[in-house]
């Protein structure tokens, strides 16, 4: 089990290196010299040469890349062109906001999407099913910024219930979360519906009916647990979608998160900030996917026992012995 986890964690390293290559390449292919952005126009040639050497821009690209990776690993993501502050520090102060928006959106998507998808599957072809499907399709088809604008229109401008832009207390989080959550609703309802439809046709559902179990218990206790594996992997994929969504929605709502930071950096062509932000979001996305992967092992008993059996380390052996002992006593 530990070996399994370790293997998956080690797998992060090549992925993150690859991401760094991309991020670095984006900088390298951009026309224009960062020195121009950092120094005022009336800087002397000497000052320019000095800064170029300091940034390592006179070195060949591979050397620059190695330097970049080394810096990134030690936590140095460069200095923002606009504020002259370390990028990492700026990102860390903004990260919590983005995380709250993103995971709040996941929660809204799952808490609405899974029950709606289940309902839609259990009552297949009924009007409930049609309403759920049409509604989630409409939400999916609306670009996130449009949805955000509509929500501002309705809840801030017309009803004055919620603040529209900026961060002024917890209420400010509601609309951005709802925007991303609702736009990902369709993915959750769809995947829940289709995997539930598959599961409720299985023989073991018929067995549960033959036991005299109620439909509600069959749906919640028997079917949903089996349908949960595709739903979990959808959550992993959706986090990426939602981190991307945070980028747009934070700009719509003026939330000072990582997405807004990257948005502003793009307008200002502030490359260290763009690179750092992308790197950070990619890292979060990869880690979330890793956690989802690991959680499969606990949901799916077949996978769990194959991991337990094939890679039995000392902890597993101890656990098994203990379990056997308790069984003997019983």
């Amino acid at each position, binding site marked *: 089990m530990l070996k399994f986890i370790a293997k998956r964690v080690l797998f992060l390293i*090549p*992925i*993150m290196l*690859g*991401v760094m*290559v*991309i*991020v670095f390449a*984006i*900088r390298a*292919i*951009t*026309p224009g010299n960062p020195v121009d952005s950092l120094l005022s126009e009336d800087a002397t040639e000497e000052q320019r040469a000095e800064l170029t050497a300091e940034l390592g821009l006179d070195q060949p690209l591979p050397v620059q890349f190695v330097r970049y990776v080394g810096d990134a690993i030690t936590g140095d993501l460069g200095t923002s062109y606009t504020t002259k502050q370390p990028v990492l520090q700026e990102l860390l102060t903004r990260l919590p906001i983005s995380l709250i928006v993103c995971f709040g959106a996941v929660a809204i998507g799952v808490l609405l999407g899974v029950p709606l998808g289940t309902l839609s599957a259990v009552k297949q072809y009924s009007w409930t099913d049609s309403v759920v499907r049409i509604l989630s*399709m*409409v939400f*999916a*088809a*609306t*670009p*996130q*910024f*449009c949805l955000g*604008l*509509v929500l501002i*229109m309705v809840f801030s*401008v017309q009803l004055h219930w919620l603040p529209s832009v900026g961060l002024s207390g917890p209420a400010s989080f509601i609309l951005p979360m709802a925007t991303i959550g609702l736009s990902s609703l369709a993915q959750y309802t769809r995947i829940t519906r*289709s995997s539930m439809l598959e599961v409720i046709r299985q023989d073991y559902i018929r067995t549960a009916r033959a036991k005299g179990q109620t439909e509600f218990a069959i749906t919640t206790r028997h079917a949903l647990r089996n349908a949960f594996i595709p739903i979990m992997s959808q959550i992993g994929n959706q986090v*990426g*979608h939602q*981190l*991307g*969504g945070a*980028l*747009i929605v934070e*700009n*719509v709502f003026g939330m000072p998160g990582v997405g807004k930071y*990257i*948005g502003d950096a*793009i*307008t200002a*062509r502030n490359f260290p900030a*763009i690179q750092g932000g*992308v790197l950070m*979001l*990619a890292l979060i*996305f*990869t880690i979330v996917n890793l956690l989802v992967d690991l959680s499969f092992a606990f949901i799916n008993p077949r996978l769990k026992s194959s991991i337990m059996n094939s890679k039995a380390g000392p902890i597993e052996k101890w656990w098994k012995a203990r379990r056997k002992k308790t069984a003997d006593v019983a």
Partner: protein
Amino acid sequence: MAKIKTPTPAMVRYAKKHKRPKTYSPTRDAVKRFVRNRNAIVGFIIIMLLLVIAILAGVIAPYEYQAQDYAAAFQGPSGAHLFGTDNYGRDLFSRCLYGARYTLLLALGCVILAFLTGGALGIIAGYFGGTVDTVIMRCMDVLQAIPQVLLAICITSALGNGVPQMLTAIMFSSMPIMSKNCRAAILNVRNADYVEASRAIGVSEGRMILKHMIPNTVGMMVIYVVGLMGASINIMASLSYLGVGLVPPTPEWGLILSEAKGYFTSFPHMVLFPALMILITILAFNMLGDGLRDALDPRLK
């Protein structure tokens, strides 16, 4: 004792159908399932309508899309301006009609590029397997580690604004998902028992590709391509909204929206109509895609 026969409508339909000889083919079955799917047909009709609008934009549109008329700025919907006018007094109806042409053409460009690169890589990976597969798919894993919209934005911000730059950005950001889907479609067929069986009776590789691989994967790929159309329009609009990618006065719907975003609280019509166009188009592509999926995959009914 006579058997109970209740002539229900289903039975009458059945009897009528049986006057002609029974011939089944997977294609005919798929077409039948598709035609029966109301959502898919609605999606298909909307897309056809949009295509007509895109082609005939110059004929239908009452104004030129960039014609400015400051005297008529900020007008609400009226007989003269069906969707109203924007801050420069441009007719939004005409802009939305031309927008269909630009948006659909650009989205089609994105999809074709994504298919030719990502799709091709996926097909190669799936067909050859082994090291080729590993290398390609690890690269795709890396690309996929960056959220799609973010990747597209990064690339456009590096390359600068313009149509080819934006096409490249969307191509790269759609590559991982496209290649993974195409690879899965190929693997599905490669490992299928009927391919093993035909190999066992000595069918040549060329014939196998022609008779088994292509017919059994084209359907899946059409689904991915249709799905990507909607996604591309969505990303394009998001890029335009953030001010990267295309530049005004291109009448791409996202850009029309983006130009209007400053006025939306006082003149909501400026946002409403382009947003509706985007919504309807993406919805139509999604509905068509779902319908095709149901039609081509008989297991998912």
